[in-house]
């Protein structure tokens, strides 16, 4: 199994989720993160004190899929999250050794 970790623009989240469903992905986990990268943020000013906002709001999507599905899942995410503008984000793939569904104790593929 693979853990696909995608950092995307927040407003693309719904599209990404919808893009994964047809592949049979039953679940995923999302967290709000801040991203630093090529995309530059605004400058904030508070009573003359200027702060350059180098960290921009992003959403991290973590989804575990079976190895065979990984490729298509990555493509689906890349397509759905794409706007073509700088700051679209990244997708990383990590190997997962084991998965367990807490409710049933099922493991690996069945756990997803």
């Amino acid at each position, binding site marked *: 199994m693979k853990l696909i970790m995608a950092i995307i623009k927040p*407003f693309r989240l*719904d599209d990404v989720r919808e893009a994964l469903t047809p592949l049979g992905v039953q679940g995923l986990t999302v967290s709000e993160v801040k991203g630093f990268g090529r995309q530059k943020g*605004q400058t*904030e*000013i508070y009573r003359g004190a200027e702060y350059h*906002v180098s960290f921009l709001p992003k959403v991290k999507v973590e989804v575990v899929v079976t190895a065979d599905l990984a490729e298509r899942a990555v493509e689906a995410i890349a397509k759905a999250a794409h706007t073509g*503008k700088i700051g679209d984000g990244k997708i990383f793939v990590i190997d997962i050794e084991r998965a367990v569904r807490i409710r049933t104790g099922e493991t690996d593929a069945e756990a997803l």
Partner: protein
Amino acid sequence: MTRWGKTLPAALAAVLCAGPAFAQETGIDSGDTAWMLTSTALVLLMTIPGLALFYAGMVRKKTVLATMMQSFFMAALIAIVWMVAGYSLAFTNGNAYIGDFSRLFLSGLAESWDKPFVMGAGLESAATNTIPETVFIMFQMTFAIITPALAVGAVADRMRFSALVLFMILWSLLVYAPIAHWVWHPAGWIAVLGAADFAGGTVVHINAGVAGLVLALVMGKRVGFGSENMSPYNLGLAVIGASLLWVGWFGFNAGSAAAAGPRAGMAMLVTMIAAATATLSWTFAEWISKGKPSVLGAISGAIAGLVAITPASGFVLPGAALIIGLIAGVVCFWGATGLKHALGYDDSLDAFGVHGIGGIVGALLTGLLAYGPLTATADAPGGTVVGGLALFMNQVYAVVATIVFTAVATFILAKIVDAVVVLRVNEEEEREGLDVVLHGESLG
């Protein structure tokens, strides 16, 4: 039929109380003045922080500050517009359609500041008050402030700040001031016609609601409207805001009696009853039709009731207030949900759905339910504002006139401002959010 005429008996009373010798010298009543000073504070409280919170509580995180800024800045901007020319255009004699320039920059106060205020001095329909003109100017200023602040809710999340500033200066002078003159100055054509608007159902709410709707139509829907989740970031703010609006509304309506007497008492009582009934009727309507009574529904109902009772507040008894609130809650619920979705426009915070529609409901019901004796005077023992077909027709007339004038004038001004500075931010800016884009700030 301005409510300020109604203050005559009170004024009389004060004069009597003062005793002849004293009367010559001044007919200012400390009790009435105390209440009007308080009412002024209460109505300002409605806009800042009341409305600022009510609206900011309904938007997404990225525009919370910008939304608050709209109300807060209105308070400052319109105060100056009012001082410079707005007040003069609205409340000096002029003609039936607009005042004159005799009070530009509030000139003349140096002489009259410690005399009781006489509205329409010189006219035989002049109304003597028991408060100084400074207090009248301030009280009316807070009304001039909240009206544009209400309207802008319809275009939340997408209007440029510079456009807002320019537009509202023009709108306040060219749309608000004239309508206030029509309705509340004894020489105004609607006052002469005999339509009744005790505390601003037409001048403030219908006016703001329609202007907001026109702006929403001109500017178009928010990016992602209908597809993306636009649920409020912090409804708690909206509850605080609605609560302060409710409390402040006592100054808005009971203050419109211009004196601390029985009329103010009755106005406060009916205001409370209508707000409460509308809260219940909206809540139960939603509970039944959607399955749950939402907090947003409850506070929206309260505002709907407050809006609807506004034109009626000095003219009706508790029973009538119950009816007005009941109807307003249900009709505005439909206005902010059914109607809006049916027609598909994006009146983001329901300025029209609640204030426009609620104002119309209230104005018309005033025509039917006004209880004469509340406005009885020496020469009109039966009352000057009496519910019935005659009054109802006047109300319809006044409402239609206001809607048409506001709609047309707002549309023209919007187009002009759009041409000059562009009304709307671009899509990317809108996505990023007005807080950081317009003001360089954001919530932590």
